[in-house]
């Protein structure tokens, strides 16, 4: 025995929740086309994403074909709607086969929400795309744990733990693999590079400052052949790969 559920909305949400959703032609076409007997809540962005898929296909068509079939765009909403309808119908049919009772239950959202929740929803994102070293973050975290109270600190801890998995390196493997090294090097200042060179313990190099400039000028003045000949005459201490 199937029980017909009256189409009563069980929302406790004020109407303002949905006020920031733009009225979409497709949605209104759909709503008119569907005077369903079962009170399904129609998902908002669902139809919009269908439009995207088909728009992409249209663009592809445009590029390859050059001309479109007559009235393509006129027919398009219907095509979209019939695809959606097909899917919904197959879901209804499916449910009718396995558990018909469920087809007659309202799908409206039941749970209560704080009012204005969606309007005021803000997601704070990390400011840098390359996360800072865990060690530095941990120190500051401890400082602020005291100030902010434990609850805040725990949330923070979870968020920070999520952002960087390996203490040993300043960037994650994935970031390392996809980095455009040349570009990043270009964006380094001379000072940064020189500081690094001065600190790095490599055999045979020392820090040079003013003296080098004139020498380098002279090197630049020398022709390529002169330089090549010189290098050939040197013992091969370098080992390049």
């Amino acid at each position: 025995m199937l029980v017909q559920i009256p189409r009563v909305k069980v929302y406790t949400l004020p109407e303002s929740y949905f006020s920031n959703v733009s009225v979409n032609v497709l949605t209104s076409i759909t709503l008119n086309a569907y005077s369903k007997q079962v009170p399904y809540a129609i998902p908002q962005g669902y139809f919009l994403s269908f439009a995207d898929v088909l728009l992409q296909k249209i663009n592809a068509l445009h590029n390859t074909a050059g001309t479109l079939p007559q009235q393509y765009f006129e027919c398009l909403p219907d095509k979209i709607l019939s695809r959606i309808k097909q899917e919904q119908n197959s879901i209804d049919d499916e449910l009718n086969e396995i558990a018909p009772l469920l087809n007659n239950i309202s799908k409206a959202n039941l749970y209560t929400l704080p009012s204005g929740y969606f309007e005021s929803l803000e997601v704070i994102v990390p400011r840098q795309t390359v996360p800072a070293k865990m060690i530095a973050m941990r120190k500051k975290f401890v400082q602020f744990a005291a100030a902010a109270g434990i609850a805040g600190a725990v949330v923070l801890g979870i968020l920070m733990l999520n952002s960087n998995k390996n203490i040993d390196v300043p960037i994650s493997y994935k970031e390392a693999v996809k980095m455009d090294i040349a570009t990043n090097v270009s964006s380094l200042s001379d000072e940064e590079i020189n500081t690094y060179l001065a600190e790095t313990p490599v055999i045979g190099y020392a820090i040079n400052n003013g003296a080098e400039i004139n020498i380098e000028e002279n090197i630049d003045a020398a022709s390529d052949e002169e330089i090549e000949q010189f290098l050939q005459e040197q013992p091969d201490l370098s080992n390049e790969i």
Partner: protein
Amino acid sequence: MKKIILVLLIVCGLTANSFAQKGEKMQAIKVAYITREVNLTEDEAQKFWPVYNKYFEELKTARDQNKADELAFEEKSLAIRKRYKADFKKILVDDARVNTVFVVDRNFMEMLKNRLQDRKKNNRNKSGKPA
């Protein structure tokens, strides 16, 4: 909730500052460079970096302690590298790759020096005067 957001904002601001210090960008580029040159996989990377960092620290210490004595530094650094060869081999297996680790620091430096040279050249070309 507001308290959490406030704390988050503060920390985000602070991490932005600490990030700017200490040539971390340089370190990041070096990591990327080595990852590429040695062709590390994600698994290898996990094991590699703790070992490499220790190795590099030892080299740095040896350099600092032997600023005036090039030969002493060379001996020490050779000893260090010999010691770490086995550790790297465990992770990287292939001898050629282990060898790469031992030249990659110098190659990285060479690359940076070349870029500096290029910049100086370009400046000279633009203004007609030495940089």
